Each structure stands twice: as C-alpha cells, then as structure tokens.
C-alpha cells in the first residue's frame, strides 16, 4: 500500500474514538487473542491470510480482515472443518466433522498463561514475556551486514508471504542497526518452521525511493530481513 496513489485521500481522525466501534469487533478481537494464546496461533499465517483477501473484502475494514483470517487459520489448522461455520449459519445440523483438539492439560496451561498475560502483569512475567513470546532467536550464522553497510532491496517481491514493502524493491539504503536473528515471516507463514534470519533497520533517503519529486529532508527507516537484501 505504501506510496500507492490509488489509496490517497484525506485522513479522517475521529475525536474520542472508542477502543471498539461495534460489539462484534470486540468479540472478534477477543476470539483472535484467545485462539492465539490457547491454540498457539501463527500471526504470520494470519497476516498471510489477510493479504490473500480480495481487495473489496480487505477494504471493508480491519476487523473484517481479522475475522476472515481467524476463520482461515482455524480451518487450515483443522480446528474447524472447511465450510463448517457457513453450514452452521445456514442452520444445517452439525455433521460432527473430525476436527482437531489439543490435549486437556495443554489447553489448561495455555488458558492460564493467556489469562496471566491479559491482565496487568507482575514483574517476573513482564521480564519473561518478551523472551517466551518474542521473535528473537539464536542466529544461525554471522550477520552478512554491519551498520553502515550499503545494501539494495531485491528487485521484486518473492512469491508467497513476504514483509518487503513493494515501494522499496530495487532501492538502495544503508544499514542503520542490526537486530540479531528473528523468526522469518516468509517461511513461518507457511507452517511451523521458523527459519530465523538476521534483521536490520535500513535507512533510505526519500529521493532514492521516490525520485527527484520526493519531499525534501525525508528518510525512511524500514526493518528488512537478510534474504531481502543484496550487498551494494
């Protein structure tokens, strides 16, 4: 979406905006987070499902996207049978499809942990949480780049899920910060493999990205994984 003039328009700020506009939005949010905690959702898979929506559905709104992605995740992971929800909505009797269910002990532990994290957390949990639930992983190799190195983003986005903003394809920048290795979304979105890769914050000058028509004194800072970058 970044830089795409098709989406340009005025930005409407709502005064005193509520956290949720409709009760179903709150419910969708709560279900997504409950499923995420108790059934270990894969948020890269969720993002991938959102990106696969047709444009019309996508543009209907944030929680419409979430609801769709939640349903897809549940189906892909066989917690719901394909079409089971639609059948229910048509009023058809449940044909008891063979769907998965985690062991009782697993559900109990994860429910407990989720409820701990969904409340003001004690200091020990705040300390533990980013390590237990974060995305940093042991680096599989030495980083290919160091802060200050020149890099160029791949000329095209690879097929499938990726976190390369399209407007950066082929653009040159400078590594500003190395974050160490993190879960690689391109692979993780497909299933369970995490394939950790080094992550860098790369600095791009506005003119490099948008050409001479760029606003003056604009810099873009974007987090990019090592496989997205070539040495420059």
């Amino acid at each position, binding site marked *: 979406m970044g830089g795409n003039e098709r*989406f340009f328009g005025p930005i409407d*700020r709502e005064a005193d905006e509520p956290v949720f506009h409709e009760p179903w939005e709150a419910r969708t949010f709560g279900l997504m987070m409950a499923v995420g905690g108790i059934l270990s959702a894969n948020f890269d898979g969720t993002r991938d499902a959102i990106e696969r929506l047709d444009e019309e559905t996508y543009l209907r709104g944030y929680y*419409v996207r979430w609801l769709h992605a939640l349903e897809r995740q*549940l189906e892909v992971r066989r917690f719901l049978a394909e079409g089971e929800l639609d059948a229910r909505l048509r009023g058809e009797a449940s044909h008891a499809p063979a769907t998965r269910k985690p062991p009782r002990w697993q559900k109990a532990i994860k*429910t407990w942990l989720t409820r701990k994290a*969904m409340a003001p957390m004690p200091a020990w949990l705040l300390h533990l949480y980013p390590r237990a639930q974060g995305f940093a992983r042991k680096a599989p190799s030495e980083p290919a780049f160091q802060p200050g190195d020149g890099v160029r983003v791949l000329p095209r986005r690879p097929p499938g899920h990726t*976190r390369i903003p399209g*407007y950066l394809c082929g653009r040159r920048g400078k590594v500003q910060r190395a974050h160490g290795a993190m879960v690689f979304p391109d692979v993780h979105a497909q299933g369970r493999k995490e394939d950790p890769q080094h992550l860098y914050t790369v600095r791009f000058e506005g003119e490099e990205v948008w050409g001479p028509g760029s606003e003056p004194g604009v810099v873009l*800072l974007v987090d990019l994984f090592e496989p997205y970058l070539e040495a420059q």
Partner: protein
Amino acid sequence: MIEHDNSDLATRVEALEALLLEKDLIDAKTVDQIIEHYETNVGPLNGAKVVARAWVDPAYKKRLLKNATKAAAELGFGGPQGEHLVAVENTPEVHNVVVCTLCSCYPWPVLGLPPNWYKSPEYRSRVVREPRKVLSEMGLELSEQVEVRVWDSSSEVRYLVLPERPAGTESLGEEELAALVSRDSMIGVAKPGQGSSP
C-alpha cells in the same frame, strides 16, 4: 463469503464463538477478560507515563532509548505486540513518525489498539510518500530544516516516538507532564499537548 452488514457480521462472530465453545477449544471467560483488558488497562496513558518518566529522569531516558521493552516493563507495561519495543527520540533537528504500510502493526502495550485512521489505506499509503503534507494536514507544520524520519513497521519491532518536552513545563510534575502526552504525539503526527489526550 463475509457479509458487509454489521448485523450479519455480529451473527457470524456469534456463531463462530459458539462453535469454538462447543468444541471446547477456548473458554468464554478468557474472551471476556481479553476484551476488558484492552478496554481498561491497555491504552496511550501507559505510553504517556513512559514519556513523562523519560522527561524527568535522564537515567530512565537512557535506558528507554537503549531497550524500550525493558524500560516499559519497569513501569509495568508489556505483552503482545510489545516484545521488541524501540523508542525513537524527537529533537529540534529530527522528527519521527510511525506507520505500518503492510498491515497495521502498532505498539499495543504502550499505546493500546490502533485508531481507525492509523489503519486506513489513506494514512498507510501516503505517510511514506508525502509525510510533510500528511503531517501538515493533521496540524503539524515542520520546518524544512527538520529531517522527517518515517518508520515503516515491517517486522515484529514496534516503534514508540519520544516527543520533545514542551518549553515552559519545567515546573510540572511527572503526572501533569503525562497528561500532556497525547497518543498522536507518540505516533508522531502531533506535538505533546496537541491531538487526542491519553
């Protein structure tokens, strides 16, 4: 496959929840607790406390700029979408603004859930391309001498803007300072004292 209408959407979500409960995959109390947590405990007041502390305590500010996840945890804030927090500092020469062009990534533990405009195609498409124009439309005029840094949250790293402490606030205490720190100033589309209050 998904209906537009609010009442259709409500029916669909209700049916989905009923199915998940029948299958004993989740429990309703957990869903209630999650919603309540985000409606009451998690919001921009958390981030405002972090900013105000950084304004009055130089040692805390240093820790915040070094590791914002740990600094936020010191004040009791953390959780989903805040596992890798980074604070970026505004100065007289540099102004920072945050977006997620690919989805709507946002530092929940310190700012709460994102407002609609942050998730809108208009903001996401424009702020990387014409940030000065966007900021000016939103009421923030920046001199051409100020470098505008746009942070596009494309990984699991989440960004919090540390705004400049307004002039003339030397006599204010931490709590009064926190009241000046709006949500929008921590996204980078307003100055403290401007935009929505926490």
